[in-house]
């Protein structure tokens, strides 16, 4: 008996011994000339990871490592100068740019739609939500799915008599920022008597709080009667149903390929020269109401020129070739005009 448990112990010890072996190879890899480390938003992480994998074929000498830790943490690490590049779905504020030790250049890299995903098995159609309804819902003011306010816009749906379970982000998040920013523009209740705007906001008691876009998507997937918010790509990846939301012009729009591009294209004029825009409530009949750009944070002055050049080549590749991958993964392909402006911003990196 003792012997057997010792055997089991040995097997596990053997498994853990494998791990240092794996890690021991990493320093060898870092001897390659260009190892670029980045950290930040979870929202574009699937796309960035795909870019990194594809870019390895383009330029095998550059090794990129992106850690999806959330926008808040990404900005923190970027400002602490502990990464080569950061990523955030909320642009830096003026104070933050001033505080960046080596200067900050914000390059919009991709954009996404923030989808409200829900888990209602057996529901006979997509959910449609009015603006004040989804604001109230996310404030925790609608207790059950068969509430009259939800039924009003979904007359044909068999809404269950179930509690609504909210799933939100625990960590400091650009996705939360984009959602809260939109809701503050769309609902005075949310702005004045609700959580307001921020990378972390106060959620109602009983809200499940989890880390990362992938965490929210996974939690909604396993929790019956739940609703949460994620970048559309995550909903697509897990096959979660998304709600059709009422936009500024009173139309109900679901996130889908093409919708995000049309929304951005229709609102290009509203993007200011410094590219640090949040379109809290986009115009246009076909616009999806919650869209967000997401930024790569680069330094104005790099100490290592080889690193700076490699990073610039990678980002430039992402702005051109990389855009072809966005649509299928549930992200928005940036409009050509915006790409030109992103590339101009990239030119400021030295």
């Amino acid at each position, binding site marked *: *008996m003792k012997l*057997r*448990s010792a055997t*089991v*112990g040995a097997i*596990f010890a053997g498994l853990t011994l494998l791990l240092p072996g794996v890690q021991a190879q990493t320093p060898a890899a870092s001897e390659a000339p260009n190892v670029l480390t980045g950290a930040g938003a979870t929202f574009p992480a699937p796309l960035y990871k795909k870019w990194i994998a594809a870019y390895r074929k383009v330029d095998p000498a550059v090794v990129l490592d992106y850690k999806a*830790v*959330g926008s*808040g*943490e990404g900005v*923190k690490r970027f400002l602490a100068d502990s990464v080569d590049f950061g990523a955030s779905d909320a642009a830096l504020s003026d104070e933050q740019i001033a505080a960046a030790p080596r200067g900050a250049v914000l390059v919009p890299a991709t954009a996404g739609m923030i989808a409200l995903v829900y888990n209602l098995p057996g529901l006979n159609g997509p959910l449609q939500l009015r603006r004040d309804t989804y604001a109230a819902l996310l404030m925790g003011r609608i207790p059950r799915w068969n509430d009259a306010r939800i039924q009003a816009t979904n007359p044909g749906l068999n809404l269950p008599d*179930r*509690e609504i*379970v909210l799933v939100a982000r*625990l*960590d*400091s998040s650009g996705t939360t920022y984009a959602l809260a920013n939109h809701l503050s523009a769309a609902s005075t209740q949310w702005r004045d008597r609700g959580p307001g705007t*921020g990378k*972390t*906001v*106060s959620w109602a*008691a*009983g*809200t*499940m*709080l*989890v*880390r990362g876009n992938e965490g929210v998507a996974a*939690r909604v997937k*396993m*929790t*019956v*009667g*739940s609703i949460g918010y994620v970048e559309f790509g995550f909903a697509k990846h897990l096959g979660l149903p998304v709600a059709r939301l009422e936009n500024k012009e009173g139309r109900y729009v679901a996130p889908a390929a093409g919708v995000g591009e049309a929304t951005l294209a229709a609102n290009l004029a509203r993007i200011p020269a410094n590219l640090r825009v949040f379109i809290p409530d986009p115009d246009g009949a076909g616009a999806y109401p919650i869209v967000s750009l997401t930024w790569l944070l680069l330094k104005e002055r790099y100490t290592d020129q080889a690193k700076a050049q490699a990073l610039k080549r990678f980002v430039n590749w992402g702005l051109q070739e990389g855009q072809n991958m966005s649509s299928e993964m549930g992200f928005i392909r940036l409009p050509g005009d915006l790409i030109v402006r992103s590339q101009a911003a990239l030119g400021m990196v030295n």
Partner: protein
Amino acid sequence: MNKPFAVLPLHDSVCQPPTATQLVVDRGFRGLCHLGVFLILLLVVALVVEIGGKAVPGMQKYGTGFIAGTVWDPNQLQYGILPAIWGTLYSSLLALLIGGFFGVMMAIFLTQDFLPPRLAAVFRTIIELLAAIPSVVYGLWGIFVVIPAIRPLADWLHQTLGWLPFFKSSLSGPGLLPAALVLAIMILPTIAAVSQDALRAVPLKTKQAAYGMGATHWEAILKVMLPTAATGIFGALVLGLGRALGETMALAMLVGNSNQISLSLFSPANTLAALLALNFPEAGPAEVEVLMYASLVLMLITLVVNLVGSSIMLMSQQGAK
């Protein structure tokens, strides 16, 4: 007589005084043991000092309101861990109830001649294997097996007995009951193993005497074996509870991570360990002091549980004499 031991003139004796080497080895070993004990004490003190020291600013700022508060909102600098304390105690006690019952039953089954010894050894090994499964695997198993499995029963209970506070909400997914069930299985090997030792430590004579007086198998178990081994079994339960209080990974995945106090078995809750694990990765200095305060509270709860456990054991031992 400057020799340490008097040598008796016995020709055919195998007894000898210890040699110098043996004395050195003996002293050395004793010194090593002392060192070991001292190091453990030092480690505990260092831990308490480190955590306590970092918690002091938090304690000064939030005081007892931290323990009694129900809102955890870093945005408004409001930190209250009562829901987490509640969830920790509720899930652990529930797990102890379930895991304790089955653990002790298993110990009886495996030690009281229900099975041939070889087969019993196989079962024992299987139970011990449960202790070797990583926490994260238990968490995944809970998500993909336990939650779907108990959902029909939970829905039925909620619909028919929903007026009871325990079934007030419906089971949406992660929640207190799935967490407690998985926790019960995780503490089962500890409870079963220590209880088995306690039952096996009862002298054979005691059991034979019970049979000799005409007791049936069950009478012997319930009226003689269990009361005799009660102290050890109680120790097993305290150990199990201690483990349940501190379990982190599986609970972080299963408990629902929602700060609310509810009697309902099906509503999502939070535990101290899960709160710590989820908030530490990106905690700033302001939050670290609060989290350190929370870990101090968790340590205190574990300490109190152990103290209460050992004092009850002490009392029962004295009562038995």
